């Protein structure tokens, strides 16, 4: 059985990210290619962070889901280049993140090594405004560049006082 590639993409859109289950692997933009090579379905996946512990789980989830759809031979291929970027998170994925309480990435704000241009002042106020996913206030501040998973930073809203995760630009 060789289901159409478009059908496989639809199936992959049903596989949730293991750490942020409200978005799918396709929303996250890590599935780079799907193609049949003979009887083998080759799925090309790019890692988000090189040490992300979810990577192994993602691979397993892809294989299991496709097996459950009757595809017997699945080969996962890892592709490093072009490196994954949060620009690839779908618009739908961004909406889902926001609804879930995670501020979606603000494109174009990844660090570029020009540290002095970006280093924040000692008040802890960042040089960019991340709207609070709960009350939408721009009066927010970064608590830490790192958060509960490699892809997130910890922020807090000064208006509603709720802490929230920011899916940082990468």
């Amino acid at each position: 059985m060789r289901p159409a590639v478009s059908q496989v993409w639809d199936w992959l859109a049903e596989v949730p990210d293991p750490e942020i289950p409200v978005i799918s692997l396709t929303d996250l933009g890590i599935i780079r290619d799907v193609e049949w090579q003979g009887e083998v379905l080759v799925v090309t996946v790019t890692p988000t962070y090189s040490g992300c512990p979810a990577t192994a789980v993602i691979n397993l989830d892809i294989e299991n889901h496709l097996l459950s759809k009757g595809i017997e031979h699945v080969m996962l291929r890892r592709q490093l280049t072009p490196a994954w970027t949060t620009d690839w998170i779908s618009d739908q994925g961004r909406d889902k993140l926001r609804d879930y309480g995670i501020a979606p990435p603000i494109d174009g704000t990844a660090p570029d090594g020009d540290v002095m241009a970006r280093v924040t002042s000692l008040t802890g106020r960042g040089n960019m405004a991340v709207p609070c996913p709960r009350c939408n206030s721009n009066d927010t501040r970064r608590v830490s560049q790192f958060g509960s998973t490699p892809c997130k930073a910890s922020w807090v809203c000064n208006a509603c006082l709720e802490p929230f995760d920011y899916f940082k630009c990468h």
Partner: protein
Amino acid sequence: MPSLPDIMTPDAEGLARQAGQGGAHAPAADADQDAFFEFLLRMGDNALILGHRNSEWCGHGPVLEEDIAMSNMALDLIGQTSLWLGLAAEVEGKGRSADDLAYLRDAWDFRNLLLVERPNGDFGATLMRQFLFDAFHFHQLQALSGSADPRVAEIAQKALKEVSYHLERSAEQVIALGDGTDESHARMQSALDDQWCYALEMFASDATDVTMAQAGIAPDPASLRGVWDETVDAVLDQATLKRPEGSFAHKGGKQGTHTEHLGYILAEMQFLQRAYPGASW
């Protein structure tokens, strides 16, 4: 004991194949393979040992956010290790894996800088070491992103995105603590003074470095001194810290002559694989 993160299907092999198919020039095949292997060990071992040092903070950070940050950086570095050592194993061609290289070599076969095996000390010393290394790592990876070897370039491009965040964080912290209280300032200055002579090993080029530079695979580390100085000076200035004058560098880590500290790291890191060879989960 953590195993290196799962390395999904063929990767390095596949990439090499791809590079061949695309007709891309792969000078690694022509370059001195021994030097290439050494270079890749240096990249992987710096990330592995610093990643391990960072992981020692897990559960001991001064505040929860810093604890989490330290663990996340450790994760990034160990992830990068699996890429570099995976390629090293492939280049060596003796059937060893990234895990074999990480867990079954002894101290004299490690090629990391002495700086990254320094004991953590207090939180300030850990941050200062991180900053001095990040500033080097960032510029090194930037140069490696244009490596003549496509496998090196793509690992560097991936790692660079992560290390950009590391540098931003460690620079901010060095500034916050350097320009902080009298106590934090004194500790940061002393951390800087203590580690300066280890940091300078980063720029001590040897024959391996020259071979890699000539092959267009990697920048000569000595050539990174200028950009490193600029970054470090700008941050130290903001941090109100005084840059040490000394030019003496402790050397040897890159060639396998280590301080006693590495042995203790390996004893902890490798214990399980030594006691139960081949154990996995």
